[in-house]
């Protein structure tokens, strides 16, 4: 006990620091949320381009992309090994890795971090799968709430048709086939997206989402997004010291 007292007291401090989510950080965190087909990826891409071309410190991260966890998730999905609980946990692990290695350090370093989907995606999907909502909220409780969460709201039918008109090959989990909603993948997808949509609508007020009408033209939406962004964030604090951002993407990541 005597031996460990120094370590223990230093760990006490660490605990407190880690859990203090309200402490002000120099960076800013912006999340976009919405159904598949809501247009949120396009909007966050345009926001990112605007900031990068303007020479600001910006970092972009997307859901389910941790290199540490990716292989496991891929195999688990392919072999259909996941239950609602392990699906929730593996995605939380993925998020934790990105949060601890990228999101949090970059916020401390004064970056604008743009997140294509954040914890609310997990709340919506896991909630729609019947996982206990308090349990999942606790699992993600190490993560700070975003400074702004843009929620791209579109009528369910519109989001569905935007996705389904391309006749995609629907995946087992993203179409909710694991839940046995329907034998038909397209029908299952409709049901599952409907449940996810209900979850989003319930969360919008509780988590202070800023709702953007995703049925408007993309440039109109983007004008609105930038206006709100500028109202809440003082851009001049995020200027890169050496001028231009050299890591300009030649192409957008995904449609």
């Amino acid at each position: 006990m005597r031996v460990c007292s120094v370590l223990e007291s230093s760990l006490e401090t660490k605990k407190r620091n880690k859990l203090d989510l309200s402490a002000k950080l120099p960076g800013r965190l912006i999340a976009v949320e919405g159904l598949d087909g809501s247009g949120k990826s396009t909007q966050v891409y345009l926001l990112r381009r605007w900031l990068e071309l303007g020479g600001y410190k910006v970092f972009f991260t997307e859901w389910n992309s941790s290199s540490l966890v990716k292989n496991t998730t891929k195999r688990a999905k392919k072999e259909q090994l996941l239950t609602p609980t392990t699906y929730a946990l593996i995605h939380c692990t993925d998020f934790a890795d990105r949060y601890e290695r990228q999101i949090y350090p970059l916020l401390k370093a004064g970056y604008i971090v743009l997140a294509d989907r954040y914890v609310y995606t997990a709340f919506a999907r896991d909630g729609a799968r019947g996982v206990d909502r308090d349990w999942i909220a606790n699992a993600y409780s190490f993560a700070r709430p975003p400074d702004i969460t843009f929620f791209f709201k579109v009528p369910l039918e519109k989001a569905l048709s935007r996705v389904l008109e391309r006749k995609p090959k629907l995946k087992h989990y993203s179409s909710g086939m694991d839940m046995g909603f329907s034998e038909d993948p397209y029908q299952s997808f409709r049901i599952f997206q409907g449940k996810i949509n209900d979850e989003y609508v319930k969360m919008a007020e509780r988590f202070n989402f800023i709702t953007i009408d995703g049925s408007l033209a993309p440039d109109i939406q983007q004008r609105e997004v930038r206006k709100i962004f500028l109202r809440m964030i003082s851009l001049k604090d995020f200027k890169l010291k050496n001028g231009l951002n050299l890591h300009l993407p030649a192409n957008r990541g995904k449609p």
Partner: protein
Amino acid sequence: MSAKKFFGSGLPGVDLSELTGKLIVIEGADGSGRSTQISILHDWLEKAGYATTMEVGLKRSELIGKDLDEVKKGNSVSLSTLSLFYATDFADQLENKIIPSLRAGFVVLADRYIFTLMARAIVRGAGPDWIRGIYGMAIEPDLVFYLKTSPEVLAERTFQKSGALDYWESGMDILPSQDVYSSFVRYQKIIQKTLLDLGKTYNFTVINGNLPPLSVAREIQAKLEKALAPARVDTHS
């Protein structure tokens, strides 16, 4: 027969009243004699006619058991991530091995359970409520035996077996010392204290792991006989 309980929020779609088997957990550090005890118990239980499962432990899930070794090889994994990786590994075993075995009326002998994972996370700075909340999905064991073994004995047994102390079991990721032996002893003391604290909440049966394996086994068996249907064990022992 006492009904099974979840520690917290539990799992969706599980009817606890169907789980008629027994969940017996052996906790203890590497070198505390866990696997020896499990193997002795396994024989003892099967001799007495109990169907027994012993495929449960850390890093043993089909889902990510092997991936965890890869993850721990690199030094880039941080606290919450590693804790959640282990929680996923545990949940997979809970849903696919432990619960089906309990439903079939088996005795499940678990080579460690959530407690080592909680202790490791807590000493590395995780919020105790956070980690406890995550393991609210777990089922309360019928009995938890903690093989409390002195760090010096653990070190000696580890040296005998593999010739070197493990990086993680020596707490090299959190302790400042470069001296592996001192780190090992210090880390094991911290873990032991944390586990004993958890043991008060979670009702551990503490067994002296410094004793020879057969004495430890006799002590465990005496306690187990009470928990299992006594008549069935007595006729065969």
